């Protein structure tokens, strides 16, 4: 079984993205033999009001309940976010929260951020902190968005031990920078979507092998970052990596299923 933890559908203004609507996405997942995908609205990254995109994702999950696991995007710096949050988690069937602090313009020290994390903690949902969706070197000249400050994110993860955080779209070098600060902290993991290289130090050259050695398989989630990236790149990174089968299974699906709920619950949807 394969669960992709980093997938978006919706509108993106800067280039035409294949697989950005639910029909194209489900066809892609089927062709790559990916069973389930945790899906957010990429429309919600740049729209002022996230809810239009969230409703699209909720509709996609209703239409494809055996494939799509919906995650809500909520911007706590925008008026009415508490009502948006309530609609997503009380009226719609969202399973977790994906935040875009750098796109939505708030800092980890802002009261609105702390409040939304506390609300997420109360209902026990995982929180995805998006480091990036695109390489910032490639951004449009009008919209240059820095990556998330991952060391500050590590502080947040430490400060909220009862919230399970996912760092999404981080480079391997960034993850290495928080290895020590989070060495004895358990409430976090990361997706492998934007780990494209190891960048320094002698030794094995497969990035998944290096990450496994540095962090352990339990920290790693498969993520393809569709529709921005070739999902095949992430798939090969895990499927062809020189690692044991039990570690591979954890990365491809085991960790995601544990994070989302028990296996029976996921399989029976």
């Amino acid at each position, binding site marked *: 079984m394969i669960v992709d933890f980093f997938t978006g559908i919706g509108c993106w203004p800067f280039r035409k993205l294949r697989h950005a609507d639910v029909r194209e996405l489900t066809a892609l997942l089927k062709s790559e033999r990916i069973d389930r995908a945790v899906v957010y609205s990429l429309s919600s990254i740049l729209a002022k009001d996230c809810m239009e995109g969230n409703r699209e994702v909720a509709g996609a999950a209703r239409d494809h309940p055996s494939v799509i696991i919906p995650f809500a995007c909520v911007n706590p710096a925008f008026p009415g976010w508490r009502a948006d949050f309530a609609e997503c988690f009380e009226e719609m069937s969202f399973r977790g929260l994906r935040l875009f602090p750098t796109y939505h313009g708030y800092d980890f020290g802002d009261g609105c951020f702390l409040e939304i994390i506390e609300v997420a903690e109360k209902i026990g949902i995982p929180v995805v902190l998006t480091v990036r969706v695109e390489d910032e070197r*490639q951004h449009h000249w009008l919209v240059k968005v820095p990556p998330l400050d991952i060391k500050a994110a590590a502080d947040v993860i430490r400060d909220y031990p009862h919230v399970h955080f996912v760092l999404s779209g981080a480079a391997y070098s960034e993850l290495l920078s928080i290895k020590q600060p989070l060495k004895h902290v358990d409430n976090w993991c990361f997706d492998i979507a934007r780990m494209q290289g190891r960048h320094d130090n002698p030794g094995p050259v497969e990035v998944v092998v290096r990450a496994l050695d540095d962090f352990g398989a339990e920290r790693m989630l498969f993520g393809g970052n569709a529709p921005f990236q070739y999902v095949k790149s992430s798939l090969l990174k895990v499927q062809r990596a020189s690692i044991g089968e039990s570690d591979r299974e954890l990365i491809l699906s085991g960790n995601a299923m544990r994070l989302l709920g028990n296996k029976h619950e996921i399989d029976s949807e």
Partner: protein
Amino acid sequence: MEIIDTHVHLNDDESFRHTIDLERSAGVVKIVVSCLEPCDGVYKPTPEQFRADNARVHEWMKREAGFVEGWAYVNPEHRQESLDEIDRAVCEYGMRGIKLECGCVCTDSRYGPLMEKAESLGVPVLQHTWFKITGGIVGESVPSDVAVLAREFPGVTIIMAHLGGDWQRGIKAVRDLTNVLVDTSGSIVDCGMIEKAVEELGAERILFGTDLPDIDFWTNLGKIEGAAITPEQKRLILHGNAARLLEGSAT
């Protein structure tokens, strides 16, 4: 499917051994390698440095004959020493072309003698190219610079590395310049980049590369395997074009 990786680096020997073992296990039949150790993040080697770098590649070429091929790394800031080193590396070591990184931007007039040398030897030039909206490094060339160079030296085959970094710019900048090939190496994995390159440039102008050991092999192979192009186009990119290029540059 056989694969030729046209963009590999020799950093430390341990990583290079891992690189060779991994590439072989993945079906790669040949890798073309340069050694370019930066000094404080700047790629401006002295003649002593680039001679030593090329000598290291040559040692591996002898050790892994037929599998490891070389790019001759030089710095246009050192004209005569670079010309002498190209002669040594191509004619004595048997390297297949010239690797230029960030000694100076490729529109610099100091490129001229090196390009004339490449033309006289009949070898390609692999030019590091990356447009970054966040700002480039010292001496870094962007796709529009490569276009200027290619127009000035139409008799030299130039490989614009990394599809120019920002591949949308890269493809547009060199689309009509048939002496420019591109390689697919590096950390950019944008869905659609390979299809666009095939559509605009033709599959015949695209070479597979990885940028190992720093960038993951599977990340790079996935770009080609995941692209919506024909099996024949994939075969050309992964092997056919490079085989043809290397055959033409054999001395």
